[in-house]
């Protein structure tokens, strides 16, 4: 094979310009999502074949309005384009602009041109030009911008070929600046900059000077020189201000010669839809209805595939047990690994459905309207309108919900959002709630429609939401983080969502969840299996001890097996752990068996039911909840002589599970997103402490 040349191309552009559509067109499914080292912003890359001799790695950078970063996402763009030592530093930048907002998109374009990187301008959504009465003189625009300009429509798949042709000839691209800031704003100041740092382009030095943080990719000497200029803060602010005005002047001049709109102003679709969707009553009603549809689909529709998955994994486990030679390794596979993987995969339908709705709401432009609608309310609790997305997503799973908080600009608002999201009732709590409610709440109906058990479940959802909101309020009053809170959001045009984009988003995000959270859950379920399958001397001799003890009694074989299993569990390592913590959980009305379930469900809450099923020695004959329930109901508290699961201890458990931080995956993701152990530890102790106190009060009060 002839040695193929390989170049890097970065896609840059404002949000809502169809940058991702173009990325999907260029790379197809030939893409992968990784992480930038140290931070967790998704890094999307894909391969595009330009010609026989030339391949390109396309890097999809997060949407930004300017090179000056204001959020985690935007910082990536800054660091990729300003640091030419960066492994992702591109050979070519493709700036994606949208035909209707060309003026604002060109702002970013002129900044990038000033960095003197070969740049191509793509004007996307060209199919809208006729309808909107827009005409563009491309050849004049090209000469004014010193750049190649490509008109295309990523959705209608037109113009992609011409873009590829331009990229093939990347060596011929012009690197001349368009709006040379250094000359026009304050020549003298910029002359001193370029004299002091001749190794950088003037604009690069200027960008380094304007950033608040020091940057880690220049030498100490260079940083010292930068710092001298940095000290003149007032001057810098003024120049930045001037820079923005100057750039728009240049852009306006250029567009006057090249961009013509013939449009009758009037009430368009946007105006009409906005009027309804952000109406002071209908706006909230519509949002509430959308939420109901989402919940309905997560809990009702996603249930069907979840049952299939559950059944399939149970069969797989028994198949493995039957086919593999019996032994420890087979046990590990059949009792540890397969149920562990099943425990993750079972949430895929719910999470995929949720991601689908979030992607649709974002693509259509509706999500920005909700943010607009909710901002004032959320601000009272120290959060932003943008916190709504994580809080809604949290009802499926806190892990993707926390990841979706990245676009909140204010660190303080973002941190509070991350800290309170785990209080929302995630889907892992449902199986726990279901079994305990069935045990302690009578199955009564009121007025024919209200089922007491159903109402209790609803109350628990409400409780989770109240806990999230009130702890946010508390954090808002307590947290001493000074952070300029600011909030700007663009309200994009309404769009019909593209099925292709949505499916790619759903697939990519679900994959990221399964592999990210999956690794942790899997690892812990293996550890738990070991702890439950090994123990001291009594554990090893369990069969003999139990047989001897019960030799006089007339036991059937299955009953004896169950008796042995229970005895084993009691003397396994995890059983010992349960016994150790028993004194601590006694005030809440729990014994060592529930203690084991608590410990094991620390990895993931839904493990609780499975563990109890094992503990109460239910022979595993599929999902026979009735038996587990009956066993639990018959369980006797040796001290009182009454039932173990009374109203008091049941309520205590419900409250414990509502508040406690029992999810390793969430803790891991909070650590990654906040880049510190401080916040996940605060969550762990704060939430679990609250759970303990609430459980104890409930038990002591009602017992």
């Amino acid at each position, binding site marked *: 094979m002839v040695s193929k040349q390989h170049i890097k191309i970065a896609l840059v552009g404002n949000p809502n310009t169809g940058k991702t559509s173009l990325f999907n067109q260029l790379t197809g499914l030939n893409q992968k999502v990784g992480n930038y080292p140290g931070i967790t912003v998704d890094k999307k890359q894909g391969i595009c074949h330009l010609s026989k001799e030339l391949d390109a790695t396309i890097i999809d950078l997060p949407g930004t309005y*300017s090179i000056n970063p204001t959020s985690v996402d935007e910082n990536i763009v800054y660091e990729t384009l300003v640091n030419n030592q960066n492994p992702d530093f591109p050979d070519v930048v493709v700036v994606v602009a949208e035909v209707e907002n060309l003026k604002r998109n060109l702002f970013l374009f002129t900044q990038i041109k000033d960095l003197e990187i070969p740049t191509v301008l793509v004007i996307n959504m060209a199919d809208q030009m006729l309808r909107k009465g827009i005409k563009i003189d491309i050849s004049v625009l090209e000469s004014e911008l010193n750049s190649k300009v490509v008109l295309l429509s990523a959705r209608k798949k037109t113009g992609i070929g011409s873009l590829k042709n331009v990229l093939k000839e990347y060596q011929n691209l012009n690197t001349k600046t368009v709006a040379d800031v250094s000359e026009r704003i304050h020549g003298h100041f910029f002359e001193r900059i370029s004299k002091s740092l001749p190794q950088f382009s003037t604009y690069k030095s200027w960008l380094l000077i304007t950033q608040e943080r020091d940057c880690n990719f220049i030498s100490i000497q260079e940083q010292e020189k930068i710092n001298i200029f940095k000290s003149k803060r007032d001057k810098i602010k003024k120049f930045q201000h001037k820079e923005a005005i100057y750039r728009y002047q240049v852009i306006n001049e250029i567009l006057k010669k090249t961009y013509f709109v013939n449009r009758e102003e009037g009430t368009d679709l946007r105006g009409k839809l906005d009027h309804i969707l952000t109406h002071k009553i209908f706006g909230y009603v519509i949002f509430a209805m959308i939420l109901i549809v989402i919940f309905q689909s997560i809990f009702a529709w996603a249930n069907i595939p979840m049952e299939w998955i559950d059944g399939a994994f149970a069969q797989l486990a028994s198949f493995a047990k039957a086919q593999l030679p019996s032994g420890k390794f087979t046990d590990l596979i059949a009792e540890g690994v397969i149920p562990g993987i099943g425990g993750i995969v079972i949430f895929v339908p719910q999470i995929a459905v949720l991601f689908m709705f979030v992607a649709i709401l974002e693509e259509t432009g509706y999500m920005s309207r909700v943010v607009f609608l909710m901002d004032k309310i959320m601000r009272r609790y120290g959060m932003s309108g943008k916190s709504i997305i994580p809080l809604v997503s949290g009802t499926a799973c806190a892990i993707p919900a926390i990841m979706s908080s990245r676009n909140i600009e204010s660190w303080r608002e973002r941190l509070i959002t991350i800290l309170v999201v785990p209080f929302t009732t995630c889907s892992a709590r449902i199986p726990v709630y279901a079994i305990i409610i069935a045990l302690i709440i009578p199955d009564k109906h009121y007025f024919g429609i209200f089922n007491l058990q159903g109402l209790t479940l609803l109350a628990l959802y409400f409780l989770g939401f109240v806990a999230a909101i009130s702890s946010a309020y508390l954090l808002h009053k307590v947290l001493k983080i000074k952070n300029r809170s600011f909030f*700007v959001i*663009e309200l994009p045009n309404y769009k019909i969502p593209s099925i292709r984009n949505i499916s790619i988003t759903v697939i990519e995000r679900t994959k990221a969840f399964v592999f990210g959270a999956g690794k942790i859950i899997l690892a812990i379920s293996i550890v738990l299996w070991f702890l439950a399958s090994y123990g001291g001397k009594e554990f090893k001799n369990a069969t003999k001890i139990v047989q001897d003890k019960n030799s006089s009694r007339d036991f059937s074989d299955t009953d004896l097996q169950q008796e042995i299993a229970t005895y084993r569990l009691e003397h396994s390592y995890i059983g010992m752990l349960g016994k150790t913590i028993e004194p601590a959980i006694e005030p809440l009305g729990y014994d060592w068996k529930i203690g084991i379930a608590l410990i094991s469900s620390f990895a993931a809450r839904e493990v609780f039911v499975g563990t109890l099923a094992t503990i109460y020695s239910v022979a595993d004959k599929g999902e026979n909840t009735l038996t587990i329930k009956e066993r639990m109901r018959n369980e006797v508290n040796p001290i009182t002589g009454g039932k173990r699961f009374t109203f008091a201890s049941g309520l205590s458990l419900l409250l414990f599970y509502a508040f406690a931080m029992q999810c390793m995956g969430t803790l891991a993701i909070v650590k990654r997103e906040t880049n510190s152990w401080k916040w996940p530890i605060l969550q762990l102790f704060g939430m679990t402490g609250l759970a303990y106190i609430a459980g104890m009060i409930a038990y002591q009060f009602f017992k």
Partner: protein
Amino acid sequence: MNDSIAQLEIGEKGIICDIAIDKIPLKLLEMGCLPGKEVELLQKAPLQDPLYIRVNGSYLAIRVETALQIAIEKI
């Protein structure tokens, strides 16, 4: 003291004449909210905050505290 964007009624327009650069994010300038540009208040959120404006071809929502820092001349 001039009016600010926060004093506009729905449907009213003004020309931006001064911006308190220390108190508003640079991002807003970069999105086209600049002196000399026309700004129209399209809608207020139900609790009167944030404000939904059109400026220089962009449709943006900003909080009232930010809007107060942008002086305008009503037209």
